[in-house]
């Protein structure tokens, strides 16, 4: 049976939407976790959900609470993180948090002003996860590999 034109249009639309993916280049940051964290790798999608507060527990670590920490709003590293991990524009993520917070649906992760402060937060909290610049000297934290999917 031949598909109808309307069915073809829907298939083409869904295909186009599925193709709409973000930047596939290597990330311009490294993701860091507490040394006690047992998770070795994390997918980009999982990382996005943790930072958008859609996943509250580490699935491969006895349900330990996830505690994401952001870099300062407007910083270059935070903008790069948003584009690579969430595949969304900085403004779209800013609107997402305005909608979430002001409708009582959730609050954004705490933020820190620089790499050192992010690492201090991660070192102090076993379930914490953050991101720092590629050249940062790691202290009290370890890196975790991010897979594309």
């Amino acid at each position, binding site marked *: 049976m031949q598909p109808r034109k309307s069915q073809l249009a829907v298939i083409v639309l869904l295909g186009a*939407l599925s193709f709409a993916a973000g930047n596939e280049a290597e990330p311009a940051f490294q993701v860091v976790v507490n040394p006690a964290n047992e998770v070795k790798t994390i997918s980009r999608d999982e990382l996005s959900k943790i930072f958008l507060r859609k*996943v509250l527990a580490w699935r491969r670590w006895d349900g330990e609470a996830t505690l994401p920490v952001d870099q300062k709003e407007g910083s270059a590293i935070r903008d790069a993180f948003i584009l690579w991990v969430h595949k969304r*524009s900085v403004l*779209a993520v800013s*609107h997402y948090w305005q909608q979430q917070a*002001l409708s*009582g649906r959730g609050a954004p992760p*705490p*933020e820190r002003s620089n790499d050192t402060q992010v690492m201090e937060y991660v070192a102090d909290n076993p379930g914490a996860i953050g991101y720092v610049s590629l050249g940062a000297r790691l202290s009290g934290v370890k890196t975790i590999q991010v897979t594309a999917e």
Partner: protein
Amino acid sequence: MANVRSWKLLLAVALAPLAARAIDLADGKLTVNGAGGGAFTITDGNDVFNTELVGGHVGSFKNAEFNLILAVKPSDRITIVTLVFFDEIGQISTGLDWSFVEFMATDWLKLRAGEVKLPLGLSNEVEPIGTLRPFYALPSAVYGPSSIAADTYFGVGVTGEVPLFGNFRLGYDFYGGNMSFDTAEPFSARQPGQAAAVPRAAVAPVKETVRNVLGGRLALGTPLDGLDVRVSAYRGSLEDSSLEVVLLSAAYETDKWLFRAEGYRSGQRAIGQVNHGGYVEAAYHLTPEVQVAVQADAMRTHQVGVDDGSRLLYHRSLGAGLDYWFTPALVAKTSLQYIQGNRLAFPTQVSDALARAPNEAGISETTLFFIAGLQFSF
């Protein structure tokens, strides 16, 4: 004095969001957000009502509001959220708008109980946040006194988001309880006996309670960033009739463009009333600071006992807006709206006008509505 007081408050809070960030204490255990604004409004004759402001032929600064949202997390999975407000929309009021507790059972299921913001359409939950839209006020055909958009429901609900195939997601809300919304029915003066029975009666929005509400909203998330498609519906009981509402919504937003469209049908069978309404709007950022916007909205009521040709039964409007965004959290807006029909723009002493001229000649069919204001969030 009241005007001076409102605008002092507005200026004080408007300077705060230049930092544009929620106040976060104890690493997220307590978060404080805020949103609000103030506007000058004037029309060329009729009075105009909306949830965020009122306008009349005497220009008014009495359109100021400030909302403070407090979110407390006593544990990882429990959040208690409260919104307190101060506003002067015609008159000063302060109070608790909503307050509820939320328990996150799983990553895809949250339970809510209390006075919860009503999940309806694209904008009902974020109505106080002017920085999420191009016009100062939400379109009145859907979010004004059109008898569908309650602020909150008092009851219990579930909400969450589940992944579908590919990168599609389905957000859902289901709820049950009681709620109340603003309703204004100028055509009631045209119902048999009304105009004569209530001389000098003012018709302004009143609160109407809907009991035993059951409703929900489904939101389809797509891999195309910014595309949002939703369907909302609920059913409940008014004092003299049942009420059924279905609302379809779609939006697409990029850093430069914004398109939104919503349309609904509501019915109150026992009293023979049916309403249709909707709007389309588009906005474009000429620069990161300067945004232009256009909007068309319309509403039509059919009421048994009222001549369908009455201008009190329909509303059509075209609007244009110009905004200046100091930051994404602070914006100055102006807009001019041309309104036809008196369903949502009418003289509050509509009964008197009808008593003087029963053929509605005493009421101007068109209204020009100007707004200039400032809105912020943090």
